């Protein structure tokens, strides 16, 4: 099996990539008939490097490198409009998320884009606290990303007035809340990681 797949790999295309994406939760991929309904409604498409329709096709073709380096999945706002409207029931939003998860898995931490940094930080916080503490997420994601130091400072400075507003309106306590049986949440993370390594 392995071998016959490798033989069909031409021009850097990876015929297994499609299955990798399906395995990561991207169902319905092969049903796409390229109508473009997804792209037509997408609110974020003008900021994407490839449109949702193109991403689906690129995954089917096995354009692994291009897809994993595309910005589109990280620009996707997970609004599910495309998925709801797709006449072929392709789970486009789930495919975008699946691509994100694969791209994060294979990125080395030094090459963290802001998008990758955001999602990695999110899971780190939930692993440690069991709950999300939004200010911490913003700080962590900013520090982890590979943007220049100057940019980070500018970004954080811009966010200061908002932080002040939150404190003024007593939106949250300064101390993050934590799940008491945090070991249960961590157990779930560990179970999932073990199960996925096997599958």
């Amino acid at each position: 099996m392995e071998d016959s797949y490798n033989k069909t790999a031409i021009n850097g295309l990876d015929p297994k990539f499609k299955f990798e994406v399906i395995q990561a939760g991207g169902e319905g991929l092969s049903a796409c008939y390229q109508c473009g309904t997804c792209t037509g409604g997408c609110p974020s498409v003008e900021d994407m490097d490839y449109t949702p329709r193109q991403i689906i096709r690129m995954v089917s073709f096995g354009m692994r490198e291009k897809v994993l380096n595309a910005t589109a999945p990280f620009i996707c706002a997970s609004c599910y409009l495309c998925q709801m409207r797709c006449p072929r029931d392709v789970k486009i939003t789930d495919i975008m998320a699946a691509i994100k998860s694969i791209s994060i898995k294979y990125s080395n931490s030094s090459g963290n884009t802001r998008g990758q940094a955001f999602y990695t930080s999110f899971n780190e916080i939930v692993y440690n606290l069991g709950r999300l503490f939004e200010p911490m997420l913003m700080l962590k994601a900013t520090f982890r990303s590979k943007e220049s130091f100057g940019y980070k400072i500018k970004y954080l400075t811009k966010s200061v007035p908002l932080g002040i507003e939150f404190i003024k309106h007593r939106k949250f306590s300064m101390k993050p809340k934590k799940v008491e049986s945090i070991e249960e949440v961590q157990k779930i993370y560990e179970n999932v990681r073990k199960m996925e390594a096997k599958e």
Partner: protein
Amino acid sequence: MKYSYYPGCSLESTSVEYDISTREVFKAFDLTLEEIPDWNCCGASSAHSESYLLSLALPARDLAKAEDIESTVVAPCPSCYQNLKRVKEYVEKSIENRDRINKALEGTGLKVEGKVAVKHPLDILINELGLEKLAEKIKVPLEGLRVVTYYGCMIIRPDGSYTFDDMENPMTMDRITLTLGASVLPFTRKTRCCGGPVMVNNEETALRLSYDILKEAKEADAQAIIVACPLCHLSLDAKQPLIEKKYGDKVNLPIIYFTQLIGLALGIPEERLGFDKLIIDASGITAKYKPKKKKSNKKKTTAKAKSITTH
């Protein structure tokens, strides 16, 4: 009626006002909410970027805990609502699925069966309580108030087997708002994404999408936008000053949770609905719809006692 209640992370931080106003409104109708003990984050739209299984397993712990309390769990945050609903539907689909999730829960002492219903407060208020019962309790009709309703993405999407409203043109919040006496203006961006989920990693897109919504509401001559999602609220309310600065446009439009609006019409004092937590000041609206006798009953605690004095 009694429900188990899943507030979620946003409702205990950046959107406390949604939490307290939901509790107040449910209390006013004798609907009891029992918080799931020691709940954890549902994974929002981010757990899936680590793994699909994780995005199901995190809310599964909450669902398993909810199963011990009541037959229906209420989740006001649309992201949490979707995630809980998704794992429920996944578990229900096949025995293999259920076993897979329970394997992920191994060692926590919890098991999920998928037997609880997952519902949004809008669904409960419209379909279980009903608009007639809602109308009976109105003390301060919101006459003269012009608003648009903004649903965002997650309440009625993506594609679960159970939805309580139309996916392209939802009406539940409109019907509630009309029942309260306010008028609802036509609004084409009802379910257009606010950009919230990419606020941190792609601010450009996020601010543009939010501004589109604010601009249309402003042009429609609305006095407020009524919402049902913490992330939409954050994008439109807390980020509004930033948006105004970026686009050089003074929007100044209060963003109010539908539960706050209901509370206002029920005559619940604004402090108990968290109006003071809104970043864009809504006092222009709350001042107009105050319960008739506003003095001397500040310390009284039960809603009932107040309802006698106010009418």
